[in-house]
C-alpha cells in the first residue's frame, strides 16, 4: 500500500496529533503554538484536497483503520458530501486560524494562547472526523469532541457574558448529545450494528419499525439542536455573538453545519429514502423539518433586523441560513438538495467573512453597535468592501454563490410545487437585504469616521477579503462545484 492510500485517516489523525502536542509546544515556547497549528491545519488541507481525484473517479473512498473489516471495525467512508464538507472545513479552518493570530494575541491573556490553539485544533480535527467517518458511534464521539471544545472556546475570554453563554450552549448541547446517544442505543438494540451502511441494510430487512422510528425522532431532536433549527435555536445568538470573533466565524461557518450533516447522514444514509416500514414517520419528520426551517428563515431574519449589536445580528442571520439549507434538503429533489449543499459553501464563506469583518472592527475600534459603524467605508475600505461583497452572497444577489444556492433551493421548491416555501425563501431574502444593506449604508453613506485610511493588520484583512472574493468566485464559476454536488445529491436520494 502506498502512502497516499492512508490520506483518509491522516486528514483526521494529523490535526488530532497536533492538537495533543500543542500544549507541550506551548510550555516550551508560547509563540511557536501558532506556526505549529498552522502546519497541522495545512497538512490536513493537503490530505483533503489530494483525495478529490480518487473520490471523483471512484465515488466513495473507504478505509479501515487497523485492518478491521467494516461491519465490526470502524470504517472511514469518504463520499462526495463528506469530502465537500471536509474541503470547506479545511479551507475555512485554515484561513480563520491565520486570522486568529493577531486577534488572539491581543484579546486573550498570554497564558491562555496555547489553550486557544489546542482547542482550535481539536475542534478542527474532530469536525473532519465527523464528516468522514462511516461509523455511527464514532460520529457521536467526534460530535462530543467538537461540542466540548466549542463550549470551552466560547468561554475562553472568561468574561461574564461569555461564561454565561457557554453554559447555556453546554446545557442544550449536552442534552442533545444524550438524545443522539439514546438514538444510537435504540438502533443498536434492534440491528446490532454500528456501521451506517450496515445498519441501512439491516433496517431494510424490516421488522423493527416502532423502535426505528423512535430512534429517528431522537436523532432529529439531537441534531436539530446542534444545527440551531427554529424551536431549539436559542443558544446560538448568545454563544455566537459573545465568542471571540474567529471562533464566532468557525462556529457559524462550520460547527452548526455539522448538525445539518448529521441530519443528512441519518435521514439519507442510515434511514434510506423509501425505506420500507417507516416511510410515514420519515416523510412526516422531513415535513416537520421543512416547516421549522421555513419559520427559521422568516423569524430569524426579522430578529436580525431588530438587533442593534452587529455580531448578534450576524448570529441571527446564521439561523436563517440553516433554514435555507435544511429547506433545500427537505425538498427531496436533486435540485433542492444541490441548493442546500451549495448554501453550506456559500454561507460558510459569506458568514465567515461577516464575523471576520466584525472581528477586525472590534480589534481596531472596539465597535459593536451597528449605528457606530458609520463612515468605516472610508477609513477601512478593504474591510468594509469585503463586508459589502459578502452581503451580496448572504442576501443572494447575482453574481454571488448565495444566488446560485437560493436559485437551486427555489428550483427544488418549484419541482415539488411548495409555493408557500418559495414565498418564505423570497421573503427571507428580502428581509436579509434590509439587515445587510443597513450596515452597508452606515458604512459607506453616512457621516465620516476619519478620512485617513486606517486598516487592520494584513493577516486579518487577507482571510476576510479572500472569503469575500471566494463568494464571487463560486458564484461566477459555480459549474466547478455543481456537477459533483448534483451527483452527491443523486447518490443521497438513491440511498
Amino acid at each position, binding site marked *: 500500500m502506498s502512502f497516499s492510500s492512508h490520506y483518509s485517516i491522516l486528514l483526521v489523525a494529523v490535526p488530532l496529533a497536533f492538537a495533543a502536542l500543542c500544549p507541550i509546544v506551548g510550555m516550551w515556547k508560547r509563540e511557536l503554538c501558532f506556526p505549529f497549528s498552522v502546519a497541522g491545519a495545512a497538512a490536513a488541507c493537503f490530505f483533503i484536497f489530494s483525495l478529490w481525484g480518487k473520490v471523483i473517479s471512484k465515488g466513495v473512498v473507504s478505509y479501515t483503520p487497523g485492518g478491521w473489516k467494516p461491519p465490526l471495525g470502524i470504517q472511514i467512508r469518504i463520499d462526495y458530501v463528506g469530502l465537500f464538507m471536509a474541503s470547506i472545513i479545511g479551507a475555512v479552518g485554515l484561513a480563520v486560524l491565520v486570522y486568529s493570530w493577531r486577534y488572539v494575541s491581543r484579546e486573550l491573556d498570554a497564558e491562555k494562547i496555547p489553550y486557544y490553539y489546542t482547542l482550535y485544533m481539536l475542534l478542527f480535527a474532530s469536525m473532519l472526523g465527523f464528516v468522514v467517518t462511516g461509523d455511527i*458511534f464514532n460520529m457521536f*464521539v467526534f460530535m*462530543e469532541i467538537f461540542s*466540548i471544545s466549542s*463550549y*470551552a472556546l466560547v*468561554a475562553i475570554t*472568561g468574561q*461574564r*457574558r461569555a*461564561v*454565561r453563554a*457557554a*453554559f447555556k450552549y*453546554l*446545557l442544550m448541547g*449536552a*442534552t442533545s*448529545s*444524550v438524545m443522539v*446517544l*439514546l438514538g*444510537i*442505543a435504540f438502533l*443498536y*438494540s434492534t440491528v446490532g450494528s*454500528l456501521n451506517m451502511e450496515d445498519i441501512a441494510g439491516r433496517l431494510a430487512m424490516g421488522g423493527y419499525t416502532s423502535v426505528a422510528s423512535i430512534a429517528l425522532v431522537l436523532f432529529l431532536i439531537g441534531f436539530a439542536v446542534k444545527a440551531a433549527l427554529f424551536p431549539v435555536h436559542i443558544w446560538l445568538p448568545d454563544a455566537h455573538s459573545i465568542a471571540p470573533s474567529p471562533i464566532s466565524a468557525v462556529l457559524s461557518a462550520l460547527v452548526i453545519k455539522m448538525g445539518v450533516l448529521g441530519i443528512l447522514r441519518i435521514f439519507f444514509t442510515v434511514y434510506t429514502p423509501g425505506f420500507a416500514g417507516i416511510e410515514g414517520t420519515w416523510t412526516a419528520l422531513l415535513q416537520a423539518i421543512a416547516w421549522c426551517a421555513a419559520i427559521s428563515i422568516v423569524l430569524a431574519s426579522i430578529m436580525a433586523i431588530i*438587533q*442593534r*449589536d452587529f455580531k*448578534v445580528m450576524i448570529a441571527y442571520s446564521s439561523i436563517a441560513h440553516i433554514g435555507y439549507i435544511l429547506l433545500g434538503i427537505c425538498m427531496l429533489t436533486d435540485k433542492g438538495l444541490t441548493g442546500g449543499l451549495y448554501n453550506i459553501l456559500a454561507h460558510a464563506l459569506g458568514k465567515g467573512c461577516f464575523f471576520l469583518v466584525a472581528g477586525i472592527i472590534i480589534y481596531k475600534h472596539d465597535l459593536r453597535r451597528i449605528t457606530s459603524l458609520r463612515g468605516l467605508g472610508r477609513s477601512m475600505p478593504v474591510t468594509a468592501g469585503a463586508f459589502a461583497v459578502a452581503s451580496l452572497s448572504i442576501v443572494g444577489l447575482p453574481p454571488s454563490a448565495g444566488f446560485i444556492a437560493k436559485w437551486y433551493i427555489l428550483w427544488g421548491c418549484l419541482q415539488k410545487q411548495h409555493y408557500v416555501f418559495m414565498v418564505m425563501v423570497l421573503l427571507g431574502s428580502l428581509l436579509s437585504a434590509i439587515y445587510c444593506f443597513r450596515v452597508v449604508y452606515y458604512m459607506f453613506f453616512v457621516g465620516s469616521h476619519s478620512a485617513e485610511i486606517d486598516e487592520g493588520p494584513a493577516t486579518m484583512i487577507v482571510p476576510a477579503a479572500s472569503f469575500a472574493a471566494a463568494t464571487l468566485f463560486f458564484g461566477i464559476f459555480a459549474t466547478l462545484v455543481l456537477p459533483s454536488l448534483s451527483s452527491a445529491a443523486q447518490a443521497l436520494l438513491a440511498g
Partner: protein
Amino acid sequence: MNFSRIAHNLNYVFSVVLFLLGLYTIAVKPNLVKKIMGLNIMETSVFLFMVSIGMVGSGNAPVVTEGVKPATMVNPIPQALILTGIVVAVSTTAVALSLCIRIHEHYDSLNAFEILGRDELF
C-alpha cells in the same frame, strides 16, 4: 398488562424513569449545579439502557474457552461503547462545573433566574 414482563425488564423501566427525571431537572430546576446533576442522571440512564441491551442472564465473559457457547456470552460492544460514553460524560461535566465556578465568581449566584436578571439582553 403483563406484569411479569415488566418485572423481568425492570432495568429498562428504571432507565426510562431516570431519563425523564434528568430531563425534568435540567428543564425545571433553576440551580445550575442541579442542572448538571440532571444531565448526569440522564446520561447514566442511557448507560444503564445500553448495558442492559448487551446483558445475557447468567452469561459468560466473551472469551473463547472450552465449553462456552457464543450464545451464552455477554455482548461486550455496548460495554465498550459505555466506557467511551462515560469518558465523554465526565469531560462534559468537568467543563460544566468549571463554567459554574466562573459564573459564581462573576454573578455571586448559581440561580438561573438571578443570573438572567443581572444582565439585560443587549
